[in-house]
């Protein structure tokens, strides 16, 4: 019993990290059909900004997370304005351009911060383990889980209850008609890209203390996020959540039975077989898109 529960908690922890990383990717893809290959590097940038703030100013992790959000969001906004904006009519080329951005960010960090592994301290009160139903769970992982839920709720609120979300949904459904009604679609795109990037920054800041921080940490992270997006489809937040939950539990279980690498490979094979059966993703309601 305790083993099963332990396994479920591990899976939930992996799932919350997956969701954290893929949320930004899914929002950007869902809104403008752009797969941001620099997403992994945005995550890395978030982790490095925390490392920098911690080592230079000795700031608390929580404050750093907020900084990481705005810093990476600003970078994302710039990337959208300077590069991605010109490529909306060539979706395949956005992949290339954002990959180029990723290369520059990765190499830029390697040259400025060094190629060594860096470590981020977590606050003392989060290093303990908390017993839940007789199972010891790391407090930091619970913290990540709760923060992910909070971010998800915030994103949901933003999309469904605010002016900006209203415009976002309009532009997603039909950018042309939305423009006719006086919505500045370019602005919505820029803001959405920045928001997605900011989420990646938060993800990086939060997973930084769990893993070592290195310039190429983004690649592995982003591949998992791709799988979440492929499985979840892009029409709703719910799909992303369900898919992250499913893949998280599955990887947790497979990693327990075999090892991390085999778990990743098996999940990938599962995803490839799945796309043959449900190409639009597991959790997609059929919608017509303009």
């Amino acid at each position, binding site marked *: 019993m305790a083993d099963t529960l332990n396994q479920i908690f591990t899976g939930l922890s992996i799932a919350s990290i997956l969701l954290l990383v893929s949320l930004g990717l899914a929002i950007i893809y869902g809104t403008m059909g752009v797969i941001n290959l620099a997403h992994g590097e945005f995550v890395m940038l978030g982790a490095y900004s925390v490392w920098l703030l911690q080592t230079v100013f000795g700031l608390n992790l929580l404050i750093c997370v907020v900084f990481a959000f705005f810093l990476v969001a600003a970078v994302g906004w710039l990337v959208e304005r300077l*590069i991605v904006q010109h490529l909306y009519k060539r979706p395949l080329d956005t992949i*290339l*351009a954002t*990959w*180029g951005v*990723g290369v520059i960010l990765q190499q*830029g960090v390697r040259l400025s911060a060094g190629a060594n592994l860096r470590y981020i301290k977590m606050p003392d009160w989060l290093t303990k383990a908390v017993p839940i139903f007789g199972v010891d769970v790391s407090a930091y992982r619970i913290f990540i889980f709760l923060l992910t839920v909070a971010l998800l709720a915030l994103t949901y609120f933003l999309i469904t209850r605010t002016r900006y979300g209203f415009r976002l949904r309009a532009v997603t459904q039909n950018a*042309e008609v939305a423009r006719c009604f006086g919505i500045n679609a370019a602005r919505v795109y820029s803001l959405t890209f920045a928001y997605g990037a900011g989420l990646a920054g938060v993800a990086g800041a939060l997973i930084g203390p769990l893993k070592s921080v290195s310039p190429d940490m983004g*690649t592995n992270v982003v591949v998992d996020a791709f799988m979440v997006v492929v499985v979840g489809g892009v029409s709703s937040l719910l799909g992303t959540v369900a898919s992250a939950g499913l893949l998280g539990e599955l990887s947790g279980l497979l990693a327990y039975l075999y090892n991390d690498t085999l778990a990743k490979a098996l999940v990938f094979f599962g995803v490839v077989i799945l796309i043959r059966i449900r*190409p639009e993703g597991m959790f997609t309601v059929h919608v017509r898109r303009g």
Partner: protein
Amino acid sequence: MNASNYARWRLAGYLLFCCLILIFPVILNNDYLLNKFMRYLVFGILSAALSFSWGYAGILNLGQAVSFGLGSYAMAMALKLRTIPIQTGAKGLPDFMVWNDVKTLPWFWEPFHSYAFAIFAGVAAPMLLALLLGWFMFRGRITGVFVSIITLAMLVVVNLLIIDQQRYTGGFNGITDLTTLEVFGVAFDAYSANTYYLIAGALCVVLLGGLAITQTKTGLIMQAIRDDENRVRYFGYDVAAYQNFALTVSAGVAGFAGMLYTLVMEFASPTFLAVPLSLSIVIWCAVGGRSSLIGAALGAILVTGVQGTLSESPAFLDTWMLFMGAIFIAVVLFLPEGLIGLIDIGVEAINRRRARTGEDRSKRPAMTVSDIALERSKRVREG
């Protein structure tokens, strides 16, 4: 310049390039440089293979390095089994297996005692993998960006698997200390002209063969799919089959390039199927010109050539990736057809000037109905 004229000039360009690379060793009498140049040509083959699937069929395979790596491992496995055992245990086990406490040769290593099988496997294994992946993707009508991220995910997974299975693959170190390939009494040493001719010949065959395929009906349908997949589907063509064909052929050629690369480098390593190499392939192809086989090959030779000449200073190598990223973005933004596209732009400019100065403006045929339809569909597609 009309269409048949254009095709003639293009063929002339391809033939000229083939002649140049074939007579190259006569001019150059330096084994070290020859070896370097062989590497560039292998990358040229690899890049042309990507152009076949990406430029001609619209399938941006970000995992091209998987095929390359599998080919290179197939060749390395065969060469490893022929190495004179120095540190090996009983039954001629490769050294890294002895270190990893493997007692008997794994079953999938057995057939690699035969060169014929190894060469077959180096091409067939990547093709089979591509065919399987393609079947799942294209039958599910996955296209565009999703194909790219799925192939990229496959690259990362295969790379991790090879590093993880150290007992059978040599892990991080790869497969080293290889013997020289000898077929029918001809040795293919990494520094000999024989190997150069093998590689240059392969590049010629790939370029001319690829060009020939793109001129067939199959090639035309591939290009039609690239431009408008649904329209081709409405015509009753089996779109998935053609996409699969493009991906599989491209993977086979990349696998062959991988085998040649092992001959040149004298080892196989997991870096041959890592993300940076796959990224480089896409960059070469984009810089040279994605929708031209020779453009892609030239892009690879040019970029790796410049990189090779400048790699003497390590400080430069660090900034090189930074520079490459910037070049990549610039090409994607401003020169989608790559450097080879400059020729088209130049030709067009000359044509326009001729049309302006000449009086044959009135002789231009009126727009036909199909032209108008094409124009309209283009406008619609561009939103």
